[in-house]
Each structure stands twice: as C-alpha cells, then as structure tokens.
C-alpha cells in the first residue's frame, strides 16, 4: 500500500486496504505507521493516517 502512496496511486492504495478490510473485518485490520528515518516515510505516514480514518 505504501508503494502506491509513494507512487501517488491513492486509488490502488485504497483498494488494497479495502480488500484486507473485507477479509479481516474492520475491527481486525490496522494501518501500521513506522518512523525509521527512511525517505518518504513521513509522507506515506500522513496518507496512511488519513486512510485509517
């Protein structure tokens, strides 16, 4: 999903997340944030945070 975000393909990122949401149920799927000082990670985290809401 993060690959799509950094490639700015938000539609594919949202679809990927949605397919897992259907498999696990909304209560059992979490969006994972990381901060390892890797380029692009903070940009991806902001979008991931938006998706999680």
């Amino acid at each position: 999903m993060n690959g799509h975000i950094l490639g700015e393909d938000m539609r594919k990122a949202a679809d990927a997340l949605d397919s897992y949401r259907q498999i696990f149920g909304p209560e059992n799927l979490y969006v994972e944030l990381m901060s390892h000082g890797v380029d692009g990670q903070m940009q991806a985290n902001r979008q991931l945070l938006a998706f999680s809401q």
Partner: protein
Amino acid sequence: MTPQSFVHLHLHTEFSLLDGANRIDELLDRAQELRMPAVAMTDHGNMFGAMKFYKAARERGINPILGCEAYVSPTTRFDRSKQGISAAAHHLTLLATNYEGYQNLARLISKAHLEGFYYRPRIDKDLLAQHATGLIGFDGLSQGAR
C-alpha cells in the same frame, strides 16, 4: 507512555533468516527489565521460533503474542510468472489473538511453504480469507499490499 504499557507488535527475532539480530532469550530478558507485559514475534514468512519464544516468554511472566510477517502473492500463491524477488510478494503482518488464530496462522504458513513457495513462502488473499478467524492484520510497511 510508561514502560508497562508499551508492547512491540511487529518484531523480528533471529528466526527472520538473514534479517533478524534479536536473540530470543536476550530480547525477552530486556523486555522483562523494561516491564513490558507482552511481546509479539512476527518473523519473515515462518514460525520456526514460535515454541521457543512462547516457552521463554511464559517462563518470564511475559504474554507471548504469536504472529508472522507473511508474504502475500499479488495474484495467487500458485503464480510463478513474476520476475524477481520484489515482484513475487508483498508483506502483511499477522497476529494471532487466540488459539484458533494460532491454528489458522500455522495452516497459512504451512501452505505458504508447501504450495506457494516462489522466491518466498507466499500465501494469497483467497487462502487468507479462508483462515482469517482469530487473526489481526497490519498493512502500511513500505513493502505492503499492492
């Protein structure tokens, strides 16, 4: 956050082959020192360390959470047409929330090795949908779902 409330939920041990530096006993000694109530183990594509980790955590009064950072084929686990290790699979971290979840995780990871091996032991979304009960999934890592 106090040390007592922090729990690692995505963690690689020495059983993340060629990738994990955390020795199970040293890791759990440190978690005990820091008064962490639980620790998860999510090795890459395998659960080889699960029994050792479970017993060692219990001995220290730490709640072991068994999991795996699974490899998921972008198509099916039988598809071996993609070229290259990074195209063959993305990552999905799974945690068992109960005994049924552990059994499902064991089934998924066994089938990944027996049926889905191509560069990596891979599952697919169909198999996951059949064995998702009792499991939590995380997506978001740089090599997550595509």
